[in-house]
């Protein structure tokens, strides 16, 4: 009872930060539940794990197989559902990452365990697990419970929701399985990684970013913001929809699927503040947000807020700078 299983992600022979965040939260929950914490690492060779990693779990199941040098959905889902069936954990946790978004719902269907995705908090009501997640891009929060969690439940956790604990002090028994037997043929095959990030300008080095979102409305008006950035001595960056629409090249994009930036000042114009965006500005010194919607979620993470039409604001700023 009360056992927790965490699926650990790695990429290009390096452990992913999100997995450390999750295992830290799992440590806290497992302590409260008096359960055992098991981490599952599927890799070609798990030699990239930091030396203190095993102390973060009671049990480390390492499955080594060539097919796990990259994410192989078929093999991963097979191995993890088998472990779930054998161990019947109280709670299964993984990241709400592109891979977790593939694995979580699939495991839920295969094991019959209920699923709550993209959770920003996890609480315990006795031994029952409840989650907090956001709706409408962060405009609303919901507390979610599982109707029938008697056999366990699965949670995908939003990256950045929990800090990484310095250490956990668990005993870290290592169970190593080499060449997991009888894996079914994969329905997909990894070919290669492509880096889409490089470009003419590097927004990660800018001291001042003038960042535009969908609120800019149309491509033609971006020129006005470029002028503003020029006057301020800043660099133009943007949210995802601006890139999706082809208004700016991808290397301008801030966020989980774009870049993490660390300017002294981040001026967000017409950006709502979805988590995939604000995850990219955690390192910004000061965030100033301009938005017509006074309830825009960006105002919860910004240091200063301006409720105004972004063009009216931009024009006024230009005028002041011209004085």
């Amino acid at each position, binding site marked *: 009872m009360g056992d927790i299983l965490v699926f650990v992600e790695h990429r290009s022979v390096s452990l992913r930060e999100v997995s450390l965040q999750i295992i830290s939260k799992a440590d806290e929950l497992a302590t409260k539940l008096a359960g055992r914490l098991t981490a599952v690492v599927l890799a070609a060779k798990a030699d990239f794990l930091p030396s203190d990693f095993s102390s973060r779990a009671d049990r480390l199941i390492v499955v080594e197989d060539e097919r796990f040098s990259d994410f192989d*959905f078929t093999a991963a889902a097979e191995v993890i559902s088998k472990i779930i069936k054998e161990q019947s954990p109280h709670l299964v946790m993984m990241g709400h*990452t592109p*891979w977790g*978004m*593939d694995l*979580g*719902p*699939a495991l*839920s*269907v295969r094991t019959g365990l209920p*699923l*709550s995705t*993209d959770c920003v908090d996890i609480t315990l009501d006795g031994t029952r697990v409840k989650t907090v997640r*956001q*709706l*409408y891009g*962060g405009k*609303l929060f*919901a507390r*979610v419970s599982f*109707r029938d969690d008697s056999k366990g439940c699965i949670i995908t956790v939003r990256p950045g929701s929990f800090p990484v604990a310095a250490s956990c002090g668990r005993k870290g028994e290592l169970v190593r399985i080499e060449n997991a037997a009888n894996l079914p043929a994969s*329905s*997909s*095959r*990894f*070919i290669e*990684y*492509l*880096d*889409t*990030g490089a470009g003419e300008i590097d927004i990660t080095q800018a001291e*001042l970013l003038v960042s535009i979102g969908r609120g800019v409305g149309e491509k033609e008006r971006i020129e006005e913001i470029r002028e503003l950035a020029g006057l301020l*001595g800043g660099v133009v960056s943007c949210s*995802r*929809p601006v890139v*999706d*629409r082809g208004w700016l090249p991808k290397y301008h994009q801030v966020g*989980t699927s*774009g*870049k993490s930036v660390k300017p002294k*000042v981040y*001026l967000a114009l017409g950006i*709502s503040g979805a988590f995939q965006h604000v995850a990219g500005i955690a390192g910004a*010194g*000061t965030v*100033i947000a301009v938005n017509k*919607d006074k*309830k825009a979620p960006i105002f*919860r*993470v*910004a*240091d*200063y*807020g301006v*409720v105004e039409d972004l063009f009216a*604001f931009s024009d*006024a*700023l230009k*005028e*002041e700078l011209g004085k």
Partner: protein
Amino acid sequence: MDIIVCVKRVPFTQEVDLEIDKSGKSIVTDGLAYVINDWDGYAVEEAILLKERIGGNVIAVTVGSEDDEEVLRRALAMGADRAIRIDTCGRSLDGLVVAKAVAAAIKGFPLDLVLTGVQADDDNQAVVGIMLAEIMGLSHAAVVRGIEPEEGSLKVRVELEGGIDEIRQVKLPALLTIQSGINEPRYVSVMGIRKAAKKELKVIGIDELGLSEADLALATEIEEVYLPPETGGAEMLSGDPSKLARAVIEIMRRKGVAV
């Protein structure tokens, strides 16, 4: 290529003060405008582009009420051949039930590819697509922003974090959840939507799909919804635009930016 594309109608909540309803478990939806889920617009466009390129048939599916047919008509106007609405028969649903309903409704259809959006803009769950794939036994990939058809498979571009994409080969038949930016959804006029009204739009009740009560039972329950805490947010600046501009310049200078 026979393609099924799932679409959902979602409320547009920008510049709207969300109000929690009496149950405390959802929002008041009266007076909200509705749109096609952003990601689904890209999924429909991708289905139509594939059909235009290699031929085939596109069916748009939604699970919802009569009002939700609006998004099916939009998909038809964009080029889908026919549409199916699965009526909720007054039930409340969750992601798994929606996936089961779609799977039951399209069972036996000739099918190479199913497309859904990565996530719905209202519940932000990102579950229906992959659950549907698993129920139907299809290969799948989540967060796809490029598709290249090959013999018996697709070469897809899966978007990972930090500007890294993964190129993967996925066997057909498959389900892909489509990420925004994969294409440029075509514009449809009111006229176009009206014309598309001639195309077939079939309605099936969720209760007619042969699903048991156990199938239709919800796995999760929203206990309560609440508005984000008001405290701890930004210091709000006030005044006319020039006063605001002066205040912002002042902040920038204080934070060490030379303006």
